[in-house]
């Protein structure tokens, strides 16, 4: 672990941050990688030799798009984001500026390292407030005398502690009160150094009644033995609206572990979409902490796992206030010898009356060698709530397949159409044309290669 201490010395920052990093590294060192006996990690083992890991190499800043990797260039030509950052490994290598008119309104979009220097007060106020180093304590508040809910296992904070201690950079978005940012903002992350790790961190703050969309994309070539550890903090103040999209399309060999969490205020809305396509092992947590009355969270995901990919999706809908609404739909395809894990928690605190919480997980199994583990969990401590959860696993619909074939479409093509349709269904709920088109392209490539 002395190595991590060396790395700690390299990620600079003001005193408060350095202290926080140090403390997080101590936590990281003290914790084990979560084992099978930890409910939230029951089906996913991360096999990592931290001592052998070195940080991803630094890459030079480029002044022109044409100097970026071809895949990034291709991606950038098709995007309609208002401004973006490109990170290669630990740091930003290219960026575009926010339109002047948004800057004039006080919107901030920059990288987190710069933000620490230039907007210290804001960063200090919110950084680590939603995704701290340790696992957030989502123990539900129960009526006196009733069985208290299970507290999280400290080891669930292993990777978030690493991301808290050693993050190198990431995006920072700040939208002042009442300001609406029309075009999405985005970060395109790539990696290019096999056998390394990167730790990144993103912070999005939407003040009261503000609105913003943030797209967090990850893409790389095959990179054996490479780790991407991330944390995404979404602060959604009262009546604010945040849409967050993460698209994980790392190359083969990458282990992706990212905790994404929103703190949603009164009458505020958080819409999330998680897309998981790449990497060899992927653990993506999406958590909505519905702090305010009447808050709202839509949680969508789609994934397609093939070969030996192992995708673990952990979700939390924590209702801490009355009259809040959460609606989750996760749809996934498992082909070949892939593994899908879905752990979906619905937690309703004492007093969170009139909660509406829905959860659906649908899996399409294309191979008898593939496996799926679906673990929905409910902890409900209020009596006037509407909650439902359901999980289904099925093969391709034979009746639909026959219908398509009866019109002359060959079996192989028809199957691909149905797999695509199964996933597209989720995209119908996402009003982001250009992003949807990009995702459709990824789906098509993946389905075609299946």
């Amino acid at each position, binding site marked *: 672990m002395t190595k991590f201490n060396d790395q700690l010395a390299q990620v600079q920052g003001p005193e408060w941050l350095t202290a926080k990093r140090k403390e997080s590294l101590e936590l990281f060192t003290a914790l084990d990688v979560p084992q099978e006996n930890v409910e939230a990690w029951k089906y996913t083992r991360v096999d990592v030799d931290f001592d052998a890991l070195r940080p991803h190499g630094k890459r030079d800043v480029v002044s022109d798009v044409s100097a970026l990797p071809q895949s990034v260039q291709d991606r950038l030509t098709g995007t309609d984001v208002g401004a973006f950052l490109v990170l290669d490994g630990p740091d930003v290598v290219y960026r575009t500026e926010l339109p002047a008119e948004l800057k004039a309104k006080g919107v901030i979009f920059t990288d987190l390292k710069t933000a620490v220097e230039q907007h210290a007060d804001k960063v200090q106020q919110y950084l680590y407030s939603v995704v701290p180093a340790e696992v957030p304590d989502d123990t539900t508040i129960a009526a006196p005398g009733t069985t208290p809910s299970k507290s999280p296992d400290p080891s669930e904070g292993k990777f978030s502690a690493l991301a808290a201690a050693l993050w190198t950079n990431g995006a920072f978005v700040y939208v002042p009160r009442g300001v609406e940012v029309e075009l999405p903002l985005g970060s395109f992350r790539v990696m290019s150094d096999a056998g390394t790790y990167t730790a990144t961190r993103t912070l999005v703050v939407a003040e009261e009644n503000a609105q913003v969309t943030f797209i967090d994309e990850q893409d790389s070539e095959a990179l054996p033995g490479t780790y991407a550890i991330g944390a995404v903090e979404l602060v959604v103040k009262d009546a604010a609206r945040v849409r967050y999209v993460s698209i994980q399309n790392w190359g083969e060999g990458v282990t992706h572990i990212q905790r994404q969490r929103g703190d949603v205020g009164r009458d505020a809305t958080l819409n999330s979409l998680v897309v998981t396509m790449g990497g060899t092992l992927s653990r993506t947590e999406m958590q909505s902490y519905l702090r305010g009355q009447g808050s709202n969270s839509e949680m969508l995901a789609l994934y397609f796992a093939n070969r030996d990919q192992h995708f673990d999706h952990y979700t939390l809908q924590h209702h801490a206030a009355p009259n809040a609404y959460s609606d989750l739909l996760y749809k996934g395809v498992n082909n070949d010898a892939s593994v899908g894990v879905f752990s979906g928690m619905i937690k309703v605190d004492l007093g969170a009356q009139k909660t509406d919480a829905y959860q659906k997980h649908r899996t399409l199994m294309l191979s008898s060698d593939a496996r799926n583990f679906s673990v929905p969990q409910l902890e409900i401590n209020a009596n006037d709530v509407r909650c439902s959860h359901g999980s289904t696993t099925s093969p391709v*619909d034979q009746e639909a397949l*026959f*219908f398509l074939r*009866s*019109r002359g479409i060959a079996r192989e*093509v028809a199957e691909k159409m*149905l797999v695509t349709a199964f996933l597209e269904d989720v995209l119908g709920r996402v009003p982001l044309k250009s992003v949807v088109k990009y995702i459709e392209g990824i789906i098509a490539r993946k389905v075609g290669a299946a």
Partner: protein
Amino acid sequence: MTHQLEIRNLHATVGDTEILKGINLIVPRGELHAIMGPNGNGKSTLAKVIVGDPEYTVTQGEVLVDGQNILEMEPDERARLGVFLAFQYPVEIPGVTIANFLRLAMQARKAEGEEVSFTEFYGKLQSALKTLEWDESIVERYLNAGFSGGEKKRNEILQMLMLEPNYIIMDETDSGLDVDALKIVARGVNSMRGPSLGGLIITHYQRLLDYIVPDKVHIIVNGKVVQTGGPELAKKLDSEGYDWVKELATA
């Protein structure tokens, strides 16, 4: 080559139950034959067996399309040979737009390396939509998802017009249609009628046959054709019901 659809002594089962018990039929191209008969006697089963529904097992007999036995063929091969079933209960496929589906179905009929051109696709589509009095926006919708019964039937005819089959089988396409929709559907079918089109029209009602006048009428009871006649046979069924034909089957 004999240009006809010929069904020879066809037996089919679902599970252990025999449903088709020796069907014999010949429909030359240029003719449309009506198939009538009481509920649950094998009309839809016959239709689905012809197009290769894997739910059913053929235990005996042949289905010859222009002289070629199709029973060993995959459902998509049969379709590409020009056999088309307008289903009694078309499936809903959310996520697949009608436009995309039609394009892929047309593409499936092309030789390798040959693409459906935009003009070919769009030209056909325009004319089919016009015949069916349908707005173009319909093709951006997901296949039958949330469609009314009538819209689903109209969609079957849209596919038929786009794919230009040689043999059509219409399974109660008229049921659930109001008079206006019925006329539109009939207009679609009649627009295709001609010396190269043969087919079976499964129906319970004369009202469809007023618009699509059949060349022959066959009655199926208990998995067999028990009576064949001209258009007047359908009229008789309409006024007298099925009781007398049921007796024919037991006779």
